[in-house]
């Protein structure tokens, strides 16, 4: 652990080394390592069942790890007490409380648990529930309940905020205002660990991302560098004279299209695409599943 502290110093809020978790014979996490610097927003991406939630729940203190090391705000999450929890904000993936209290009552109650909470009015405004503040939580829609979850996550002015698929059930407008909220928290210096299935969301909000598949971290890097330079080479797509869809990756798409035009008639459905984070991600995950199936092939 001393070595870890030296590498990133005190500005690291999350340090994970060779994290492992197994349930009986099933290995959910198979040696995951990453750091999150103070003030950074880090996205953990991956398909369902890849180990994202397992990782985040180990860091939140909900699950015990089977191996490896973890430090969250300098504390082993397995032994985090009330003082430690007061410095975290947690937005869980699933919540389903009976909700026999109003939005305002719920927020005021939780605010009382922190030393320096945000104002209840401020938080209600931040998540856009002004008109529902006196409504019982059980009467809210799924998306509105999710906003209450987010509100409870931020009310204690956390140093580190965990967001496990926070915008599930949001309409596009609500998602945009959620992004604004996260940008505000970032500007205040909050560190954030985010998991999401919306790659545009990860691209909009995070500084760095890690891609997890089959319990392993298959790539990690700055959001505009993940997947490597190769994965970001533009793609030219068109339909050829025989009506067959074609595509070509090229670093010089203008030149390629010019040549295409010189060689024949106007190609149908011509487009030049810069791979989005989503494209890069899908390629990464597809490559991973190909290599794993190749690895297991000879055994059979």
């Amino acid at each position: 652990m001393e070595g870890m502290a030296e590498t990133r110093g005190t500005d690291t809020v999350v340090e994970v080394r060779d994290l492992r978790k197994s349930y009986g014979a099933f290995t959910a996490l198979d040696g995951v390592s990453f750091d999150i610097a103070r003030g950074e927003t880090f996205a953990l991406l991956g398909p369902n069942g890849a180990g994202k939630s397992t990782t985040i729940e180990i860091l939140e203190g909900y699950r015990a790890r089977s191996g490896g090391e973890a430090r969250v705000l300098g504390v082993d999450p397995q032994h985090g007490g009330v003082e430690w929890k007061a410095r975290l904000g947690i937005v869980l993936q699933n919540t389903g409380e009976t909700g026999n209290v109003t939005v305002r009552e719920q927020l005021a109650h939780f605010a009382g648990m922190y030393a320096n909470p945000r104002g209840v009015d401020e938080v209600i405004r931040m998540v856009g529930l002004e008109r529902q503040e006196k409504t019982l939580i059980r009467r809210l829609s799924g998306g509105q309940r999710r906003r209450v979850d987010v509100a409870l996550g931020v009310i204690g002015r956390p140093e580190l905020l965990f967001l496990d698929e926070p915008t599930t059930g949001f309409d596009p407008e609500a998602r945009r205002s959620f992004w604004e909220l996260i940008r505000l928290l970032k500007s205040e210096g909050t560190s954030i660990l985010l998991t999401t299935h919306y790659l545009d969301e990860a691209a909009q909000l995070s500084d760095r991302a890690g891609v997890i598949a089959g319990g392993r971290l298959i790539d990690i890097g700055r959001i505009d560098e993940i997947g490597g330079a190769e994965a970001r080479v533009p793609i030219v797509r068109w339909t050829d004279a025989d009506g067959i869809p074609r595509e070509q990756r090229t670093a010089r798409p203008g030149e390629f299209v010019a040549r295409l035009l010189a060689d024949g008639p106007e190609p149908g459905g011509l487009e030049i695409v810069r791979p989005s984070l989503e494209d890069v991600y899908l390629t990464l995950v597809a490559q991973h599943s190909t290599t794993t199936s190749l690895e297991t092939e000879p055994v059979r």
Partner: protein
Amino acid sequence: MTAETTTATTSATTAPRVSANDPGRVIRLGISRIRYEVRAYFRQGDGVFFVFLFPLVMLTIFSVAFSKATFGRFPNGDAVTAADFYLPAMLGAGLLLSGLQNMSIDIAGEKSDGTLKRLGGSPLPVVSYFIGKIGQVIVTGILQAALLIAFAGLVFGVALPTDGAKWATFAWVFLLGVTTSAVLGIGLSAIPRSGKSATAVIIPITLVLQFISGVYIGFSQLPTWLQNVASVFPLKWMAQGMRSVFLPDAFKTAEVGGSWDLGSIALVCGIWFVVGLVVCRLTFRWIRKDG
């Protein structure tokens, strides 16, 4: 970005911190939990009926069904009616329902619907949570007993004790009974595997206890071996304490040993309370770590 990060770092280190070992905070949050819990309790329709109003409904049924029967005489010669006879029994049942049944089903539900998971990730001390639960039981239990006694007095003309000492007995039997019952409920909440099965697991336990503890059937009518079994559990003693308050003193001859035996009531309930509290504190988990 760098400048902002630096300011945030400094403000984070100088910001007030929550202290784990601050008894003032534990109690303040406990009281806040009581308010929160009581409010939520009365907003759930079904729980209010099956726990809060149930003894009242049963008292009404017994009083009406046995309106022709007499159960003995008061010293002034008045007949002991079914309402007189069943009021202490239903107060005893109320202690069990508001405490044990309410708590065990409530917490089992909180376990499966994610309430405990959220609280487990918040800086709420476990002791504050317990204070909130026990407080909720005491508050709703007092309201339930007050409603039951007022209803019995006004509607069924039950003669209420005028002796201050009787009410003092009522107060301590009630408080000890209801807190013991609450603590045992917290402990029992670990048994149901899900919130949905909680009712099916807990209600048979409370129902059997009520039948063998002299709530629905007179305790003296039970065979001795069953009386001995029931005497291990606290409900028999709570009901006996309630009878000592509301029934004529001569009725104590019908009790085992021919007396109200208040000392044993305090002892048995006290042991269950202390053991229950220790077990709850040692075994309670917000969530199972490897669920």
